[in-house]
């Protein structure tokens, strides 16, 4: 290899690396995600999951309960870091309480798993007819007997203890017992493999729709219009998200015939 060729090869390697890093940075700034919208009937009992025997499930109806507190636990590293600055920490906790109070006031339910004095995991469910999920940007249009599951969160210290599966099981079991909700929906990011497996294989959720969202700085998201596949489903705009939509998982399968 001549000196010129070696130089060119080094330059192209550097260029490729720069492109890769630049691409990754750009994807963190702005990216389009494919989101799987999944649904399940509440008539079928959820499986009993194995988890840390210390876990106890609470159904939360007011802020006096455990939700909103979660004192001194590690959340996201960046939030944990910011929360150490006292005024910011107070503000964050106050904001969390405010947000939870708003959710409870709307009639949303929360289920919280505790292990001793620690909050291990929580999950929320909404029965509003129209729900906008700020995290994914998705708009769900629900029938009176449908509900939307959101904000399934387990604290890092309690991951791999089955806490997430435990709160999901508790929620599904409670909705089945109440009998007011016959179908629940949720969403899973395509690259969240553990959640994909848990939700679909263990809890039997089926794909009902696929939607794309535009995400900025990994925090702000908007559902992209006309990306719903099939067009009829819980994340379609009201005329299409009407009672006309079939409710069987098989009909909704992304691989089956398209609905028009």
């Amino acid at each position, binding site marked *: 290899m001549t000196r010129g060729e070696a130089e060119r090869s080094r330059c192209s390697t550097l260029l490729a690396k720069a492109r890769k890093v630049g691409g990754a940075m750009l994807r963190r700034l702005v990216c389009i995600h494919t989101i*799987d919208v999944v649904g399940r009937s509440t008539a079928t009992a959820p*499986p*009993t*999951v*194995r*988890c840390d025997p210390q876990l106890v499930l609470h159904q939360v109806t007011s802020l006096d309960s455990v939700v909103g507190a979660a004192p001194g636990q590690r959340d996201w590293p960046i939030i944990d870091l910011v929360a150490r600055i006292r005024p910011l920490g107070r503000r964050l906790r106050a904001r969390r309480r405010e947000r939870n109070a708003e959710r409870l006031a709307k009639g949303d339910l929360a289920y919280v798993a505790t292990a001793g004095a620690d909050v291990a995991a929580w999950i929320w469910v909404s029965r509003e007819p129209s729900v906008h999920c700020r995290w994914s940007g998705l708009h769900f249009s629900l029938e009176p007997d449908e509900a939307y599951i959101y904000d399934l969160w387990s604290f890092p210290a309690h991951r*791999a203890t*089955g806490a997430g*599966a435990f709160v999901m099981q508790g929620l599904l079991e409670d909705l089945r017992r109440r009998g007011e909700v016959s179908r629940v929906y949720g969403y*899973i990011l*395509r690259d969240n*493999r*553990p959640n*994909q*497996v*848990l939700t*679909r*294989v*263990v*809890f*039997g959720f*089926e*794909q009902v729709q696929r939607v794309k969202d535009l995400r900025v700085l990994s925090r702000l998201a908007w559902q992209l219009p006309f990306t719903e596949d099939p067009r009829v489903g819980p994340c379609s705009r009201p005329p299409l998200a009407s009672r006309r939509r079939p409710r069987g998982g098989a009909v909704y*399968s*992304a*691989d089956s015939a398209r609905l028009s």
Partner: protein
Amino acid sequence: MKDHQEQTPVDAVRQVLSSVVGANRVQQVRDDDLIFEHRVIDSLHVVEFVERIETTFGLEVDGADLTSENFSSLQAIARFVEARQAVS
């Protein structure tokens, strides 16, 4: 004793499951037993199990394949693996 070539697809799946949850938990399981309902495997091991299925059989299991039917029993998993291998 069966050699590798004589191993049926169900046996191969059974072996993968044994490697994840331990042989004694899988020994008594019949081919058509529902592995979640019989608590052979739990939510803590299922992600690892799906990954082992992928690496052992050279498959890529995507979202649409992740159904409770495909992973309900040893027989169902073997059927799914065979179907996927026939396609690729």
